[in-house]
């Protein structure tokens, strides 16, 4: 099934990418060609009861829900990289109308 320009526009919206019309058109042909390639997976028959993952030998790791370090231990290093800040707060555009 061919990928349309509207499909790519919708995908760009969902992916939070601001793309120009030119890029959308270029991506449409590229994604269409990649999708034709990956469609090969439709050809192989899947037997019943196939394992859901190749990593079934890995067990889930649980830990107590507790603070693992002292408060403020990493705050300075992390807040230093905020593009815009007010003290220790991250400043962003107004969210609610």
């Amino acid at each position, binding site marked *: 099934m061919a990928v349309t320009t509207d499909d790519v526009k919708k995908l760009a919206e969902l992916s939070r990418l601001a793309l120009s019309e030119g890029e959308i058109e270029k991506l449409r042909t590229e994604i269409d060609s990649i*999708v034709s390639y*990956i469609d090969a997976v439709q050809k192989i028959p899947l037997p019943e009861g196939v394992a*859901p993952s190749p990593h079934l030998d890995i067990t889930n790791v649980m830990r107590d829900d507790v603070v693992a370090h002292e408060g403020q231990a990493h705050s300075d290093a992390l807040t230093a990289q905020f593009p815009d800040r007010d003290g220790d707060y991250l400043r962003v555009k107004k969210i609610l109308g």
Partner: protein
Amino acid sequence: MELTDLTARALADGYKAKQFSVPDVISAYLQRIEAENPKLNAYLEVFDDARAAATVAQERIVRGTAHPLTGVPIAVKDNILINGKRVSAASKMLENYTATYDATAIKKLKDAGAVFLGRTNMDEFAMGSSTEHSAFGPTRNPHDTARVPGGSSGGSAAAVAAHLAPIALGSETCGSIRQPASLCGLVGFKPTYGAVSRSGLIAMGSSLDQIGPFARTVADAELVFNTIRGCDPLDGTTLEDYSEGVAKNKKIGVPRSFVNDAQPETKVVFEKKLTELAGKGYDIVDIELPSAPYALPAYYIVMPAEVSTNLARLDGMRYGHHVDGMNLLDEYKKSRAEGFGPETRRRIILGTYILSSGYYDAYYRRATALRSIIAADLARAYETVSYIATPTAPGPAFKIGEKADPVSMYLEDIFSAPANLAGLPSISVPMGTVARDGKDLPVGIQFMTPKRTDATLFSVARDTLGEA
């Protein structure tokens, strides 16, 4: 012989015998990098504290408490975090980002006393097979600078091949260590999934990503792997420590119909190497891997799905490239469009498509099931053979700009995909050369073994290279 020609093992021996000091070796490397790196663009940054680290390492050697990697210089792919150093994943998005902690692999190397020379170029966010997708220009292959070094860990491969480092760390999601090792004439090792912690590795495809070494000898690759491996509370997918026995037999399985996808000259070199291994007591047998050709298309479903999810966190708000906009959503969209390069944007869009409502069953669920079928196919083969061998990549290094079409680039990883999808360890070692434009270009042979049998790969790799 120059100091920069020595292996990591030889450096350790030389330090012990007081033939030269760590500062001597680091100076030799810094000089060579200054002279050669402008031609290759292997390093994005050379660390200014390498000389100070050399002094500390030398003191440890003098005290007699050295690890075999103490004072050994190492290059690090630009997607592995070193506390306080910039780490950009070769992306404009993280161009000015500073790591706030050490990756577990880095912590282990610091404990061993290794000296970090610098961070190496790569395809942006590890997406590519040529290092052309870096936001900071392509890396060139030391064997022919008109050609690519492979990717995505192309900077690390070029650095070790050009003797700008004796060893380097790379990372692999599908072939990103083995394929550049093949194209640059090196040993490249992709460990069992879960053998090395992913903590501090910038995530691409989390069910596939694994850190591994580049080296010029099997012994050096093994030394780095044994230093960085181990169960880690910071990565829930790391495996409990496992002991590896010896291979049950010397049978090497060759999936002939799959290998047919390699270029004719590569196949000639591959067959010659197999004959040589037969002369060394290995039994070469034909095997069937009917699902192997589906591994790469399945990979191009699983990986973009994980990419679009992992890279969603990069929105220019808390760190990374930020563009002002009319409102918050506009800022996200502009920051991401400007911060990510074309290949990254392409894979995010593809992943979003694959995970869209209505397509999930047709693609992601099917590809995940295929991973299990591929793993089962491989397990069946390992009932009779100890190793599976194929060429590492279809051909030698290609020219910069040659593979402009995305799918033609993706096909570079056709032989890599089964090991990544099934989580198996795999190693690439040089098997010979193929002539192109009057130059002899290296090509590699890769071996795969079952999960948790990493050590047996080093033994067949040593036999292949004739290493003691």
